């Protein structure tokens, strides 16, 4: 009986997680377009629903009813595989991400995470690495020069930025003496990691921008020079997969930044429920992502590489050494 309840709970949590992650891009696209509009003294979507609130739904219906086109010269198998490869990892990663300690519903304690792995951080980085294959396969299979260029760029970019990103979080792991995200948050109960690890956060955040391929590092789908980058040839529902994956990764980067450096669900001053604190912090980071997008131009390719290898990598290594020395 207990096993059934536990199993049912896990299934329920996973289903809830998937539902939330699938639905969140809807308000996020709306927000992004609204913020973009107001930053450019426009209004953004206004015509579908109150202040365009139903615009994402209309767009979703449009994407679903569009022709699912596959180019004649494309590698059909890889072409169909790529959106799934891009979509699945960000969802899988959230299995290891905690959203709070636990809440008691009807007398039973329900933990706000699906699993508490002791190597959660490693799991996150390992799984999110797979997402690159979706992008690379997508660009390669489409057999179009823009898509190939986009995926080549992504390939180099992802590899270059995964290294400093991995190094940047080592400082956090050293402080918490654990790789479990739950322990990392618990270790920040008094002082957030950002106080000890400002450089680590900086490297993590910049690398996170690059990993989620947002401006100023969105070389993979540079609208200006590559059409739409790796998903140039995608249409309809497969394109929607890539979009959802992109938003999920943006969300994941925000969540990781909050968990690793901004104390997770630990609040300051104002006593709000932990889940609310967590949501507020994540929302702030999501806003920052959007804010950056409509403020900065795109870096050139060589600048991107220079930042990754010549600035972030040394910085993250220095950060590890300094943290280590401070520990001794």
């Amino acid at each position: 009986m207990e096993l059934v309840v536990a199993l049912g709970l896990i299934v329920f949590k996973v289903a809830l997680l998937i539902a939330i992650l699938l639905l969140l891009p809807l308000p996020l696209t709306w927000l992004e377009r609204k913020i973009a509009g107001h930053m450019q003294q426009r209004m953004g979507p206004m015509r579908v629903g109150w202040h365009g609130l139903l615009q994402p739904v209309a767009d979703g219906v449009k994407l679903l009813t569009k022709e699912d086109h596959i180019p004649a010269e494309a590698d059909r198998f890889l072409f169909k595989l790529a959106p799934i490869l891009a979509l699945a990892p960000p969802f899988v990663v959230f299995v290891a991400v905690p959203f709070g300690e636990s809440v008691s519903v009807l007398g039973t304690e329900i933990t706000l995470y699906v699993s508490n792995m002791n190597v959660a951080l490693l799991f996150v980085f390992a799984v999110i690495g797979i997402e690159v294959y979706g992008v690379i396969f997508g660009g390669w299979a489409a057999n179009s020069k823009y898509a190939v260029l986009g995926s080549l760029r992504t390939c180099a970019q992802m590899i270059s930025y995964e290294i400093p990103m991995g190094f940047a979080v080592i400082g956090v792991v050293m402080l918490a003496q654990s790789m479990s995200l739950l322990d990392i948050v618990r270790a920040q109960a008094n002082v957030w990691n950002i106080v000890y690890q400002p450089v680590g956060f900086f490297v993590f955040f910049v690398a996170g921008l690059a990993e989620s391929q947002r401006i100023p590092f969105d070389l993979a789908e540079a609208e200006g020079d590559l059409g739409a980058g790796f998903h140039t040839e995608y249409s309809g529902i497969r394109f929607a997969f890539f979009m959802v994956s992109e938003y999920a990764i943006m969300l994941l980067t925000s969540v990781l930044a909050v968990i690793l450096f901004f104390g997770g669900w630990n609040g300051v001053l104002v006593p709000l429920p932990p889940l609310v604190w967590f949501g507020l912090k994540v929302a702030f980071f999501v806003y920052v992502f959007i804010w950056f997008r409509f403020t900065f131009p795109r870096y050139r390719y060589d600048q991107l590489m220079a930042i990754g290898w010549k600035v972030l990598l040394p910085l993250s290594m220095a950060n590890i050494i300094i943290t280590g020395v401070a520990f001794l």
Partner: protein
Amino acid sequence: MSRALDRTGIWIGWAFFADLANALALTFGYMFSRPVTMQYPDKEKWLPYSRYRGHHFLKRDEEGEIKCVACELCARICPCDCIEVIPYEDEKGNRRPAKFEIDMARCLFCGLCEDACPADAIALGQQYEFSSFSSSDLVIGRDDLLGKPGKAMTGGGVVAAHLNTEQDVLVETSEPQGYNWWRNIRRT
């Protein structure tokens, strides 16, 4: 000394991303400034100025007779060749157009026909809402042209979109001198 100081200042600013922070502050400020969008078909619409070149109209003289003398000068000068005039002689022996057709689908609203007309019979009025699903509906004949709204009396204001401004309506607007487009534009 001051130059050296300046340069160190710039370098320090650069190292701490002062330029990026500036840009972020600017966009953040813009986010809370009022949008300049005019929500045209939904909420507001614009009243043309009196010199606006919209849909053509043909004028009548004091006796209510059509002013046009069917000289075909407008048809000649038109760069798009979109006016067709066929003259006839009426009861009083005046030369008048039997047929006067303008193909609005081809017109580029240059206003040359208005300038060329020796009888001050044709002009470009204030109407601008005449889009159509078929280009044959855009060929407008003489009698329709006589009924089209003339030049705007006031203009430049912004009014509610549901108002009908077809016939020389004098709409009271809060901006009699015309809408100040720069009003909401933030200039730093």
